[in-house]
């Protein structure tokens, strides 16, 4: 009963928030609606018993991703209205419908076949404990690879967004470094 009420309430909220995100012409409204939709999605994870995933959803998406988007928006000209593509409406609607039907087919294929068994069935411990046990035994290598990927992404983000990242102090001569520092001091004094 309560599960049904919660599901329909959060389904309505999530769909309306994401609808606002893809239709509004204000970038700030889109950002806010997206953040709200992310938080509402974490409610589904809590309903489904995936407590750890819900907490990660809030921390990573609403905390990190949205903050990064907010910082990124400071670089861009986001106050003006966003112009939209004047494409053929029938093509857009038709392709979206086709893709949605494809997704339904993909997800309903394993439901139709009944011979599915749980690969790593739950052992009855808490969700976070179970996640830790599976993540650090069966999925240890993908976990490490994901960690390396995040490190690479962090370095790439810093290098791309930072200033004067093409200069390297370790590859420069002492004279060049002194010249650069003098220019910097001149700029500060003037």
């Amino acid at each position, binding site marked *: *009963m309560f599960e*049904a009420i919660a*599901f329909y309430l959060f389904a309505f909220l999530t769909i309306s928030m*994401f*609808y606002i*995100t*893809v239709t509004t012409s204000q*970038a700030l409204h889109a950002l806010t609606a*997206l953040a709200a*939709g*992310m938080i509402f*999605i974490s409610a*589904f994870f809590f309903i*489904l018993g*995936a407590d750890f*995933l819900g907490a*990660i959803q809030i921390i990573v*998406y609403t905390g990190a*991703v949205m903050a*990064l*988007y907010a910082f*990124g*928006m400071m*670089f*861009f*000209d*986001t106050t003006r209205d*966003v*112009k*939209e*593509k004047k494409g053929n409406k029938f093509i*857009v*609607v038709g*392709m*979206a419908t086709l*893709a*949605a039907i494809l997704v*339904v087919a993909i*997800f309903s294929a394993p*439901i139709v076949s009944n011979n599915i068994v*749980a*690969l*790593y*069935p*739950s052992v009855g411990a808490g969700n976070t404990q*179970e*996640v830790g046990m*599976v993540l650090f035994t069966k*999925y240890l290598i*993908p976990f490490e690879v*994901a960690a390396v*990927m*995040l490190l*690479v*992404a*962090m370095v*790439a*983000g810093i290098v*791309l*967004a930072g200033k004067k990242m093409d200069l390297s102090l370790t590859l420069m001569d002492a004279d060049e470094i002194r010249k650069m520092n003098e220019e910097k001091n001149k700029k500060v004094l003037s």
Partner: protein
Amino acid sequence: MMEIGLNHYLVLSTILFAIGLAGVMRRKNLLLLFFATEILLNAVNIAFAAISHYYGDLTGQMFAFFVIAIAASELAVGLGLLIVWFKRNGTIDLDTMTSMRG
């Protein structure tokens, strides 16, 4: 109606995926295009978590974790590239990125 099953979650996931897909197709601003891709990834995460719950298997949640990790790194690199492009051209509209036209 009152009993929430796996199909409810899959239908919800499909609706969100369709919304995100429509957003990807109609958006011209690259930042808002990124928002639409986040919606796509979140829709798939709901389906993963629901299947994980109804089959009593934690693999779905593991995939959801990796999807979140990929989304975060994709965002970091993509936003960096977007900032470089904006510094160079002063705009992040998709229609201006036609430098490879022959």
